[in-house]
Every structure is written in C-alpha cells, then in structure tokens.
C-alpha cells in the first residue's frame, strides 16, 4: 500500500508491512502521530510505540499493547485498525477528541516482534519470545508471566519447555523490560490495557492473588459498562471480573504489574472467539472484532479521562 488509506485492514500482515504501516501513519499525520522506539527485541527488531498526542508535555496517558502473545494475530490486526481509527476520529468524534486534547495515547502494535515474525515464517502457533534458554533446547519465555508482580508464583511454569514459562527472573525479556522502563520513566500513565485472544473476557487485577485490588468495585462497574458497549454492535458476549476469579491464577502478568505501579485503570482483553477457529480466526472477523473492541476501549479511555486521579 502507498498510504494508510489503501492498507488492507481486513487481512493479516507480516511484520515488515506493519512496520511500514506505522511509518506511513506517522508521515501522513506528523502533528498527531509519532513513533518512539522503546527498545529492541532479542533478535534486534525495534519495539515501536505509536504516540498520539496533540501537544503538551508529559500529559496523562493511556497505554495500549497488542500481540504480546505472537500467535494471537487478531490482536496485532486490531491494533493496526485502532491506530487508523484514532487518526480518522480525532476532530470528528467528540469523545475521542476531548480525550486527545488532554491526554496522550501510546499504542504498541507488535509487542513481541520476534515471536510474530516466527509465527509467520516457522511456527504459526508460536506464543513466546525467541530468546534461547541456557541449558535447555526449548526457546523463549511467556512474556505475560515475566512481569514483576507475584513473579514465580503459582500460575506460571518454571519449565523452559512450557508455554507459560516465566523466565529466569522478572523482566528478563527485553520486550517486557523495555515497557517497564518506558512506563516508569514516563510516570504519568493513567490506564494500561493489554489485548489478547481468544475467550471473550475483560479482566482486571489481580491474577496472582485472591486479594481483591483496592479499586475492585470501580473496575468491576467500568468493565461492565465496557462489555455492554462492546456487545452493542454485534451482541458479542464477554465475561468480566478479576483474572484469578474469571480465568485462573496467573502470576507475573502485565496488568498486575501496572496496577501495582499505581495505574488504576489496568485491564486486559481476550478478544473474539467464533467457537471454531481459536487462533486461526478468519480474516473476515478482523474488522468486526476491532470495531466492537473499540467500543470497550472508548468506554475505558473515556472513564479515565473523566475521572482524573
């Protein structure tokens, strides 16, 4: 594609095309979008974050990441669609315009680029990073068990061959540490949203402990509002609640870490499941998935905007 308008949002793209898309979007919207490279993956790929900002310095901000589990292709595809949606809606949609006039949005579309590349070239079912594990023939770490939040506890594996291997220590993966360093140095994130697939759930902290987080009541009602908005388009039904009560115990997860950093509005999504395809969600599902998810994202972003803390 020669520009972001002719990019085909309704299909899955290899990583070089997503990188090109990001550069096109920045070039076409220099006053709104910039690209920040927050680090490098193990194999040396840039960890690109798109910053949507209308000005100001160190404004309160919203973090969104997609694709930390590489095989969940609908998340990277949805992230690409979100980026274009933000550009298209700024100045047209009053709610998004108000948010962007006061806050910045940071979007990392390919959070695990080595895994994403590998899932396109060698193993479509790859979930983890691609860093070798000393003493093991098995490769990679589950980057959503590698955060410093209950790290090493139940709900993550200590075996390098497991799909949920937590890694040798918290933040051992550059893909995770780069976000940690960036979010800490920024210091003004007010929402942190991670997108996964599939199971149709909207979850909030905690995953590593049964102890309810102190904002449990507010997060629960916000999740309810978000999944109601999501369902308004196609009737897609989501379950919602804390990770440990809704799915299972999981330690070392991203939103438990972000919440413990003081980012109150920390959520993770499990996107659409047609009931037949799992991670091989057909391409005709991409735009409906992204469109309905956007409703929920707007609910969370709007609540964050209207409830400063």
């Amino acid at each position, binding site marked *: 594609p020669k520009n972001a308008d002719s990019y085909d949002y309704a*299909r899955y793209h290899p990583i070089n095309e997503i990188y090109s898309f990001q550069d096109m979007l920045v070039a076409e919207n220099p006053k709104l979008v910039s690209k920040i490279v927050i680090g490098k993956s193990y194999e040396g790929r840039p960890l690109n974050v798109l910053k949507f900002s209308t000005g100001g310095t160190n404004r309160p901000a919203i973090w969104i990441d997609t694709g930390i589990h590489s095989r969940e292709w609908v998340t990277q595809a949805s992230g690409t669609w979100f980026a274009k949606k933000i550009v298209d809606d700024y100045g047209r949609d009053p709610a998004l315009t108000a948010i962007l006039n006061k806050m910045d949005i940071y979007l990392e579309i390919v959070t695990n680029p080595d895994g994403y590349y590998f899932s396109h070239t060698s193993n*479509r*079912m790859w979930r983890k990073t691609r860093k070798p594990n000393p003493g093991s023939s098995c490769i990679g770490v589950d980057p959503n068990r590698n955060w410093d939040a209950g790290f090493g506890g139940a709900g993550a594996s200590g075996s390098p061959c497991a799909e949920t291997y937590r890694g040798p220590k918290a933040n051992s993966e550059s893909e995770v540490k780069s976000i940690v360093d960036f979010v800490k140095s920024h210091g003004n994130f007010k929402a942190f949203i991670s997108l996964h697939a599939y*199971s149709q759930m909207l979850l909030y902290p905690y995953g590593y402990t049964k102890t309810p987080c102190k904002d449990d009541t507010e997060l629960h009602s916000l999740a309810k509002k978000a999944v109601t908005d999501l369902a308004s388009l196609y009737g897609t039904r989501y379950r919602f609640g804390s990770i440990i009560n809704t799915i299972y115990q999981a330690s070392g997860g991203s939103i438990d870490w972000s919440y413990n950093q003081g980012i109150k509005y920390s959520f993770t999504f499990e996107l659409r499941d047609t009931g*037949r*395809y799992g*991670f091989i969600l057909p391409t005709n599902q991409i735009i409906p998935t992204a469109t309905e998810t956007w409703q929920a994202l707007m609910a969370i972003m709007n609540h964050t905007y209207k409830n400063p803390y």
Partner: protein
Amino acid sequence: KETFEGHQVLRMYAKNEDQLALINDLEDNHEFELDFWRGVTDVRTPVDVRVPHHNLRSIKIHLESNAIDYSIMIGDLQAMLDEERMEMVSAARVPE
C-alpha cells in the same frame, strides 16, 4: 518450518469440579505435549487443547476413561493453516 499435520484441537467439557481438576492436571503433564489454547476456568466454559497426532489416541482414551466429554474443534490443524496461508498469499497478490 514446523507443521501440524494431524494435530487436532479438542474442546473439552467438564461436568464438575473433579473433571475440571483432571483437565487442569493435564496442563502440567508434559508427556502428552499439549498446548492449551483456552485454559481451565469453570465448568461452564469449555477448554480448548491442541493435541499432537501421535498423542491423540492416548489423550482421547484418557478423557473417555474419566467420562470427560469432548468434541473435535479443529480436525486437522495443518489443513486450516494451509487455508489461512493460501488466503494471505492470494490477498497479497491482488495489488500485483
């Protein structure tokens, strides 16, 4: 390139907490080489697991001997991946 000929994705339905625990135990059992696509949550929610072809027979016997209901969500994963790849290749050729 890793392929998945004959791998199936089984959708398992636990009828009670005991069966749920049995499925949960499978996740820690590396002998079957299972890949949990959708993990264990509660009895209302099915569990989706990719099973390599060479372990299909033993895992199905294990499920049936424990009276755990299951259905075949994906009959041949590689066939579905091939379809996905064909779709991507043909979509990429359209501009050409």
